[in-house]
C-alpha cells in the first residue's frame, strides 16, 4: 500500500476461460503481498521496439490466496492489451505487473455490512474478490449482488455464484439478463432501473455499504438510483470501467 510501486515479473500458471470473451489468468508473483478485495494490478506490455501499453485489471481472487493472483480479463475487440492476453499468452509466459493498487473501492470483512454489490458485465470482477474474501473469512454479513449481463452465456463465475448463494451464509445473487434469457426465465430481463434497485436494495435497508462497478453509464445510473432510495452518497462507492464490459 505505502511507498512507490515496483514492477515485478509475474509468471502465468493457469488460464481459464470464463465466457466466450472473458478469461481468468493466474499469475505467480515473486513479491506477492496481500491485496484488499477490490484493488487492481497494472499490467504492462513492451514491444520489441520499446513501445509500451499499460492497463489496470481488478484482482478476482481473495487476499487469502497467497503467492498468486487471479485477474479476470474481458477481451476488447479494439484493445491493445486484452487481445494479446487472450490470444497469445500461454502458461509459463511472463508478464510485467505492479500492485496491489487502490484504496477507495475496497471492502474487508472488518468493514461490516450489510453489503450491496451491483455489477455490470466484467464489473463483477472486483466484487467477486469481495465475495471470495467474505467466504474465506466465514463472514455472514448480509449481502446482495445485483448482476447485469447481456445473455446467460455472458455471466462470469455463473457456477461459483450459484454455489456461493446456496451455502446459506446470507448471500443473495440476483441476475438481470438484458438481451437474451433462457427458456422459462422468471428473473429480471431489463437494464437496471429504479424499481429493480428498490426491490433488490431495500431488504437490506439504507445503512448499507454499496459497491457499484461496470460500464460508466450503468454505474452512474445505479449510484443516483440508490441515492434516490435514501442511501447516503458516502455509503456508495463506485468504479467506472468506461464504455466497455457492459450489458447494453
Amino acid at each position, binding site marked *: *500500500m505505502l511507498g512507490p510501486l515496483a514492477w515485478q515479473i509475474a509468471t502465468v500458471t493457469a488460464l481459464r476461460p470464463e465466457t466466450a470473451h472473458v478469461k481468468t489468468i493466474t499469475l505467480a508473483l515473486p513479491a506477492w503481498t496481500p491485496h484488499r478485495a477490490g484493488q487492481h494490478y497494472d499490467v504492462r506490455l513492451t514491444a520489441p521496439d520499446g513501445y509500451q501499453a499499460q492497463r489496470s485489471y481488478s484482482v478476482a481472487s481473495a487476499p487469502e490466496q497467497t503467492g498468486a493472483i487471479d485477474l479476470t480479463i474481458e477481451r476488447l475487440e479494439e484493445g491493445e492489451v486484452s487481445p494479446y492476453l487472450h490470444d497469445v499468452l500461454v502458461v509459463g509466459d511472463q508478464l510485467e505487473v505492479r500492485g496491489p*493498487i487502490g484504496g*477507495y473501492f475496497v471492502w474487508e470483512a472488518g468493514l461490516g455490512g450489510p453489503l450491496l454489490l451491483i455489477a455490470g458485465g466484467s464489473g463483477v470482477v472486483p466484487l467477486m474478490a469481495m465475495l471470495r474474501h467474505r467466504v474465506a473469512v466465514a463472514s455472514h454479513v448480509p449481502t446482495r449482488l445485483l448482476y447485469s449481463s447481456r445473455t446467460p452465456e455472458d455471466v462470469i463465475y455463473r457456477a461459483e455464484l450459484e454455489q456461493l448463494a446456496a451455502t446459506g451464509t446470507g448471500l443473495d445473487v440476483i441476475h438481470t439478463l438484458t438481451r437474451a434469457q433462457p427458456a422459462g426465465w422468471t428473473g429480471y430481463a431489463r437494464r437496471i432501473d429504479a424499481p429493480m434497485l428498490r426491490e433488490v436494495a431495500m431488504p437490506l435497508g439504507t445503512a448499507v455499504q454499496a459497491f457499484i462497478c461496470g460500464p460508466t453509464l450503468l454505474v452512474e445510473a445505479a449510484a443516483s438510483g440508490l441515492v434516490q432510495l435514501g442511501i447516503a452518497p458516502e455509503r456508495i462507492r463506485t468504479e*467506472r470501467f468506461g464504455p466497455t464490459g457492459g450489458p447494453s
Partner: protein
Amino acid sequence: MDNGERDMARAFRLDGNAVAGLLQDIFAVEMTASPTVCAHCGRAGAVGTLLAFTQAPGVVLRCPACEHVVLRIVETPDAIYMDARGTLYLRLERRPA
C-alpha cells in the same frame, strides 16, 4: 460538442480509481481513499470519487459535483507535471516510521 459527442465523452469517463497507480507514482502513497476539496464548489470527497478523463495526452480529474478541473497531470519522458489549482488540498498519509 453536440449531444452525441457529449454522451460519448460521458461513457468514456472513468474515476480516480483508474489513475491510482499514477498518483501513487507521484506521491509514493495510496491516494484514492484520501479526501480532497474542490476549489470551485467546495465539495469534499475521496480522490477515488473524482471523474477521470484519460483519453488524451494527459489525465484530467474533475469534480463530480460541479465538473470543474481539480487536477491535471501530464507525463513526459523525463518529468511529470501536475496542475493542482483546482483543489484546496490533498492529504498524504504519513508512512509508518
